């Protein structure tokens, strides 16, 4: 069935500007595969080298984090939207980071 995937702003450059991508899928895993087949550049931003979802990339089905459901096996009920949601982390203790001053 058709599943709508909500793309966060930083990743829209890899979906040709599309905010919502509709794919055919029955589970979260199928939806991700369909999405990254259509937009292969998304893969390295969503998955690490072991092919697992990056720790600051989160998937929500409605209000539920799919990590607490059945992960990629989670079935997607009809009409539900899958949201890709970044978590934002950081901190100080600047040490050897590089930066560039705007010209």
């Amino acid at each position, binding site marked *: 069935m058709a599943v709508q995937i*909500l793309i*966060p*702003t*930083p990743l829209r*450059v890899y979906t040709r500007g599309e905010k919502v991508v509709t794919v055919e899928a029955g589970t979260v895993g199928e939806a991700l595969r369909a999405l990254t087949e259509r937009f292969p550049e998304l893969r390295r931003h969503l998955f690490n080298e072991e092919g697992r979802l990056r720790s*600051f990339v*989160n998937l*929500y089905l409605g*209000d539920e*984090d799919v990590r607490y459901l059945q992960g990629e096996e989670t079935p997607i009920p009809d009409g539900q939207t899958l*949201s890709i*949601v*970044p*978590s*934002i*982390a*950081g*901190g*100080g*203790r*600047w*040490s*050897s*980071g*590089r*930066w*560039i*001053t*705007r010209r």
Partner: protein
Amino acid sequence: MILRLRQAHQDQIRAHVEGGYPAEACGIFLGREVDGVRIVERLRLVDNRWADPEEQTHRFLIPPEEVLAAEREAVAEGMEILGFFHSHPDHPARPSNFDREHAWPWYAYLIVSVENGRATDWRVWELREDRSAFIERTLEVVP
């Protein structure tokens, strides 16, 4: 890219980061982008949710449920998430390696240096597409 804040927003951020000192404090910018100018129309102040409170002096976390709530608020108002701010207590307003490892491209990252409890330096950064470094951008404060 220019990040444009209203004076009232800057005052709110100052109170939030000085009030949070010596922990890092953080928040989310909602608004619109017009010709490369990120116009902040709404601010969401967020509690630092980094799991270990002792590490909150140099770490912060905005959990995904906060980002999702902000995203929904933005969509409902025809806005979007423009970026985030966090403080660096007793550290320069420059991104750390840890910031870079966890940052996303496109978003505006405002860092406020808070020295001895006072917000001193305000700088805006954007992660390069290849994640190699941050580029400093312009902060504009309007009435």
